[in-house]
């Protein structure tokens, strides 16, 4: 088996999906968008009911409408390619195999909101994609898909540049991302003000997930109604899921929203699954009795990370791995997150050693709920999720383990 991951940008694996992986040719969305008015593009997006694919699920049409309406000399559109959520790799696949979707979506965004510059914030871990992506942008410039008077559209100038992150999970949070782009520590800002009016360099900025921009390209070409055909009423379209862990066929899958967890497990060949962590370390752990729930904003909302654990896995070890991650990645700016995560990890270690009281564990769950309320950004607000959900859903396994034992295993 080849161990070295080599990049041939734009070369596609055999992938099937109703929306993202459907037919598309480079430049199609740009060509179509430039023949439309900005308002019409916004109406198409509104019809599509597309929500942000990073996980928060804010309506893309609203975000772009607000940024478009903001009055400023300069505006920016940022592609958030800082996917650091454990178990997520769909953006890597999109950038490697479908760069045309992402970049075309950015150009469309630039046109719609009136931005002159698009910035791709690429996570440092994906440095091997930097050169190929830059070469790709150069090709786009040659084809007049970037630069001055794009495709002959008088007065529409747009450029894209790529900035490399440097290994900070918190920079996936949009204001932290903007802080680091401005040359500061990547510490989240207070919101409001939101980036839509006070973003990069204090200008109106739209920050969009890689997958959101890819979806925009399809919507512009094929229409908002076409997109909304897929999925559920409240979660339109499809979603890319990054599947890893105990299954036969890990990888990226495109499925319509509303798919049941059990259907996904069947598809990827996950036998004996006892738990699925959905949404990465900051997501929720779903036990077997809940496998009939659906993946959708109204049921289990997610950025697409799906990690599968079979009967033999020690869920306390899983939880410990997640809490170590958060202790590592908390930026340390606000107290609930900086100290709270350390306390939760200590709690996990106490259980591991069999040296705990339920009174203390319950206090820690309370602390987790306090963190969800009091932390400044999404990191601290969601880091107690695995602590609370794993201890709740797997209490029999975890608390019957005895002193340092592994459940008799």
């Amino acid at each position: 088996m080849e161990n070295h991951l080599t990049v041939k940008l734009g070369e596609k694996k055999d992938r099937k999906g109703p929306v993202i992986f459907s037919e598309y040719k480079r430049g199609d969305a740009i060509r179509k968008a430039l023949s439309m008015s900005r308002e019409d593009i916004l109406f198409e997006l509104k019809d599509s009911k597309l929500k942000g694919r990073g996980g928060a699920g804010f309506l893309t049409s609203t975000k772009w409408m607000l940024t478009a309406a903001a009055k400023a000399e300069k505006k920016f559109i940022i592609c958030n390619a800082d996917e650091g959520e454990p178990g997520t790799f769909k953006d890597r696949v999109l950038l490697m195999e479908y760069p045309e979707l992402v970049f075309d979506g950015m150009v469309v965004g630039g046109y719609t909101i009136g931005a002159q510059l698009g910035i791709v914030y690429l996570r440092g871990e994906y440095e091997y994609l930097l050169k190929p992506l830059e070469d790709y942008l150069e090709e786009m410039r040659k084809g007049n898909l970037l630069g001055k008077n794009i495709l002959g559209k008088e007065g529409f100038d747009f450029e894209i540049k790529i900035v490399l992150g440097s290994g900070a999970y918190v920079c996936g949070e949009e204001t932290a991302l903007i802080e680091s782009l401005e040359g500061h520590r990547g510490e989240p800002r207070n919101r409001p003000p939101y980036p839509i009016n006070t973003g990069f360099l204090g200008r109106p900025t739209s920050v969009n997930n890689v997958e959101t921009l890819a979806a925009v390209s399809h919507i512009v070409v094929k229409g908002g109604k076409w997109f909304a055909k897929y999925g559920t009423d409240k979660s339109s379209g499809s979603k890319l899921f990054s599947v890893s862990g105990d299954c036969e066929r890990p990888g990226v899958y495109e499925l319509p929203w509303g798919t049941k967890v059990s259907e996904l497990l069947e598809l990827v060949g996950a036998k004996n699954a006892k738990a699925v962590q959905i949404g990465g370390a900051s997501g929720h752990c779903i036990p077997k009795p809940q496998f009939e729930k659906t993946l959708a904003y109204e049921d289990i909302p997610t950025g697409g990370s799906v990690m599968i654990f079979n009967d033999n896995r020690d869920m306390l070890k899983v939880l410990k791995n997640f809490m170590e991650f958060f202790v590592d990645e908390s930026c340390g700016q606000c107290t609930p997150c900086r100290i709270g995560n350390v306390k939760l990890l200590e709690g996990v270690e106490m259980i591991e050693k069999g040296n705990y009281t339920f009174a203390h564990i319950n206090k820690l769950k309370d602390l987790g709920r306090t963190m969800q309320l009091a932390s400044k950004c999404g990191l601290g607000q969601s880091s107690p999720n695995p602590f609370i959900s794993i201890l709740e859903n797997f209490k029999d396994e975890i608390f019957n383990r005895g002193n340092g034992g592994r459940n008799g295993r």
Partner: protein
Amino acid sequence: MLVVEKNALSEEIESYVEKYGNDRSALLMILHEIQKKHRHISEFAQQEVARLLNIHPVEVYSVISFFAFLNTNPKGRNLVRICQTISCDMKGKKQVVEAIERELGIKIGETTKDNKFTVEYANCLGLCDMGPAMAINDQVFVNLTPEKAVELLAKVK
């Protein structure tokens, strides 16, 4: 540091500033270039960056100290990062790490005596479907076995 070395480094940093601009928003890319070439950002380099961007050196230091991939102390010539997230862990990360530690005679977080390798853990490398995974400098390697991992390190110059 010799004067000629200092001059060379200054010139190098000036070329980055020319490429990315002398605005503070160029800082991250400039630091990235210095880090990549010298495997750390020395005090002198920090001062030069600060001078050219017209900010205080401590501002540069504060940004470096924030990011996991930027550092002020030199590391080995080759940086090996092994993904420690649960998906890679379940596929046998531990055995890979132990093999590397045995082979190089160091523990995670240390640098070999000949300064050839620094081995570290990294958080999710985004290669969860192909774990265990590791990065050697800016290249990534997947589907590792203990034997394969060691073999790959042996090929590094």
